[in-house]
């Protein structure tokens, strides 16, 4: 469904990604793990068209999307919930949600999806008219997730969805990831919580200083020594 | 006599003289808010220069020398005037400087010329302080006190009105001074000023002010402003039902006033340097030449003054027989009875032009010559 080929990305003189290739098949959950500054966020940003790669290409459903503008990519059904929540701080929770469904026009279904998302995060329902910027960190994270759900994408890119969430909500988030995947959404997940990520994912890639160093079945990787040592805090 | 250490001494070697060309400078607002004035003046000066050159040049001490005009832009800013005049004097080695319309800008440029001992003639800065800068600063237009006096005299003696109101442009020293002079003269001739209001250049809405003036029942409103605002004032006054005569000064002088004001300016008067339809030979000749040079345009007062300023300068160069600053200065100071387009000009002891004023009236969609007021 999505294929990233030999991607190279530079920030000025700094090269953040070298020759990164990865694949996401329809119906999968694929996770991308790696330590701080490995380039995970950079990878997702490049896929979404926010950054122009220096080399390489991105193919989505057989179509080359490397040079498309972000909104055109979203139109094709590839949405992203960005790092650092990325809510519109000066808009209410309500408005934020409605923007999630910007590309859609099936109003009845949107309303239903909205209900569904709010039932997943009851906290948000209490806060519908609050400015998103004044939400607590965790609440913002929930909003970002709910908004991503409303986009109903075919492929969803999630950048650290569990950041700053209370343990229970982390559980909820991963459950939601599984659920929407079961409903047919393909997911590319970036997580620091490698532990949980490897549990829900089918396949995984490990990114280190801008290069893919390992890849394979999520369960197998979780069991491998290198990964345990570096990312699971195992001894 | 050599000037000790005058900084311009280095610059003012007669490079121009050897080239045979006499270089004169003009600084004016060629761009910016007052570009209309600057460009008209420039056209007038250029016409005079071209005429002299077409006649083979200016005869100085028996030699015919061509005249070259260097025009520089002040961007309608006083701040630039000093720089520009310095440039004309040091870089272009001009023998004399003509310029600025706006008194506030001339006041910045004239001291530079004064210090360098280069004579300067302003075609149309009417504020009294301008020529007080020094003995190298002259003008060929009348000064505001006289214009105010002439306006008052006309209203009292020819229109025979006694109650006037003032509408003054407070952002313009010209307007300010003119209004005071008018009021003073008008009161001394037995009239009363019943109300005063003011505005700032660039404003477009005068309804409130006109309403407040109307309450006092004036028989005439004296508006010593620029035509840009006057058109609006007239339109709005008429719309408010005020059909009394309006009167102003030479700031009204532009064909655009009629274009913009339309029917509203019917029955208005202004004092001016000249009236294009005044059938004197000088004016007719000038209007024809100007029209021929600038595809049919009717010259406004600024063009006429620019033309006169240049010609006064040329005449003085001829009498002086040299382009040397001090001698040229003396020659200009002795100008007497020069017959220009804008009247017969005599330079007085204060380096101001003594000349008559004309009053124009708007009648049947045309400006017509109404009266001439002789100097006091």
């Amino acid at each position, binding site marked *: 469904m999505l294929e990233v080929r030999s991607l190279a990305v530079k920030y000025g003189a700094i090269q953040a990604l070298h020759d990164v290739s990865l694949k996401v098949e329809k119906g999968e959950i694929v996770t991308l793990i790696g*330590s701080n500054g490995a380039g995970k966020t950079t990878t997702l940003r490049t896929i979404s068209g926010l950054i122009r790669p220096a080399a390489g290409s991105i193919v989505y459903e057989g179509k080359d999307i490397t040079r498309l503008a972000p909104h055109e990519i979203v139109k094709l059904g590839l949405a992203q919930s960005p790092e650092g929540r990325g809510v519109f701080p000066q808009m209410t929770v309500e408005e934020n949600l409605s923007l999630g469904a910007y590309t859609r026009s099936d109003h009845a279904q949107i309303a239903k999806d909205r209900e569904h998302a709010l039932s997943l995060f009851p906290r948000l329902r209490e806060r519908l008219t609050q400015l998103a910027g*004044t939400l607590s960190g965790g609440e913002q994270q929930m909003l970002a997730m709910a908004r991503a759900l409303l986009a109903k994408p075919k492929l969803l890119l999630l950048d650290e969805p569990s950041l700053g969430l209370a343990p229970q909500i982390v*559980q909820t988030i991963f459950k939601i990831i599984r659920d929407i995947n079961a409903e047919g959404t393909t997911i590319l997940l970036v997580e620091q919580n490698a532990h949980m990520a490897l549990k829900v994912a089918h396949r995984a890639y490990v990114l280190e200083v801008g290069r893919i160093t390992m890849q394979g079945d999520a369960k197998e990787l979780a069991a491998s020594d290198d990964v345990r040592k570096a990312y699971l805090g195992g001894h | 006599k050599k000037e000790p250490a005058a900084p311009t001494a280095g610059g003012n070697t007669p490079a121009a003289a050897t080239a045979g060309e006499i270089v004169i400078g003009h600084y004016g607002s060629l761009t910016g808010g007052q570009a209309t004035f600057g460009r008209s003046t420039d056209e007038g000066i250029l016409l005079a220069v071209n005429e002299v050159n077409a006649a083979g040049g200016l005869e100085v001490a028996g030699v015919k020398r061509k005249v070259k005009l260097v025009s520089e832009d002040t961007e309608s800013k006083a701040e630039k005037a000093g720089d520009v005049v310095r440039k004309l004097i040091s870089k272009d080695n001009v023998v004399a400087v003509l310029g600025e319309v706006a008194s506030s800008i001339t006041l910045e440029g004239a001291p530079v010329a004064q210090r360098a001992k280069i004579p300067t003639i302003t075609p149309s800065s009417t504020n009294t302080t301008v020529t007080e800068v020094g003995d190298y600063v002259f003008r060929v237009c009348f000064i505001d006190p006289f214009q105010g006096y002439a306006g008052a005299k006309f209203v009292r003696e020819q229109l025979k009105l006694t109650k006037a109101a003032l509408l003054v442009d407070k952002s313009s020293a010209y307007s300010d001074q003119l209004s005071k002079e008018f009021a003073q003269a008008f009161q001394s001739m037995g009239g009363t000023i019943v109300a005063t209001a003011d505005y700032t250049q660039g404003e477009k809405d005068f309804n409130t002010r006109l309403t407040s003036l109307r309450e006092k029942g004036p028989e005439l409103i004296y508006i010593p402003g620029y035509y840009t605002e006057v058109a609006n004032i007239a339109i709005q006054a008429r719309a408010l039902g005020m059909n009394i005569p309006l009167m102003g000064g030479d700031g009204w002088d532009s064909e655009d006033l009629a274009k913009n004001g339309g029917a509203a300016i019917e029955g208005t008067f202004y004092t001016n340097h000249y009236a294009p339809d005044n059938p004197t030979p000088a004016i007719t000749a000038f209007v024809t030449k100007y029209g021929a040079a600038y595809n049919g345009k009717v010259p406004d007062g600024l063009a006429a003054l620019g033309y006169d300023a240049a010609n006064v300068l040329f005449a003085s160069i001829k009498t002086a027989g040299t382009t040397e600053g001090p001698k040229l200065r003396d020659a200009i100071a002795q100008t007497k009875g020069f017959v220009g387009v804008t009247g017969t000009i005599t330079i007085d002891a204060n380096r101001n032009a003594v000349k008559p004023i004309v009053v124009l009236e708007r009648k049947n969609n045309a400006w017509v010559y109404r009266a001439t007021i002789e100097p006091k």
Partner: protein
Amino acid sequence: MSTASRQQGGFVEQGFREMSVALAARGVSKSFGGLKAVQDFTLELPTGSLRGLIGPNGAGKTTVFNLLTGVYQPDVGVVELGGQSILGLRPSKIASLGMARTFQNIRLFGELSVLDNVKLACHVRAEQSMLGAILRTAFSRNEEAAIEAKARRLLQLFDLDDRRDEAGRNLPYGDQRRLEIARALATNPKVLLLDEPAAGMNPQEKLALRALIRRVRDEFGVTILLIEHDMGLVMDICEHITVLDHGAVISRGTPQQVQEDPKVIEAYLGVAEESEKQ
């Protein structure tokens, strides 16, 4: 400085028994519109202690920090730093009195270099006058040198010295978090508030952070209050924990006590703790 801090560290051991209070909040409440973000919050931090503040998302933890540091003013209640009330003071004043913090959403001076970030934080202790700086008097010159030295020492401690010339915002997330702590320490705080210092770090990095926090407490003798959602970290290093829910304290005690409190399990830990521990 190191000797002084060590002495202070020694003092901590004794002071602990005497329960000298570094920071105290009593009956503090804050609401936003109709929302009661914090209600009747009370907390005492003994000098030299390392304590935790936890609770579900939106419980009011960050708001407590904001109330303590003067970003918000409490509706009612008292906040005392070293026995002196700091109500109504501007955050900068409170910082100069000895309280420093990090932010949940990192707030570095992005365009400034790593070194300048830390040097800036030394400003609050600088004694030179602006005129002195302009005239570059001997005093100001010496002080600048001292600031530079102090900043470098801190960076070395935090393993950031080799990145000192880089712009703050170009650091990876984990390094940024550590730089924030270093910067806070540069103000010579008596009390340090850390808001989710481990967020965005992987388990490996979290381990390193644990050690670092302990070391900071021991070496600098700083009193620390910590917000964190990573239970492993909180339970490991905090001596005492306060649990917030809906703005109110629902439990407090040692990690052991809190972990077993059914109210805490219901409101916060849930079954999550179990799966986390596997």
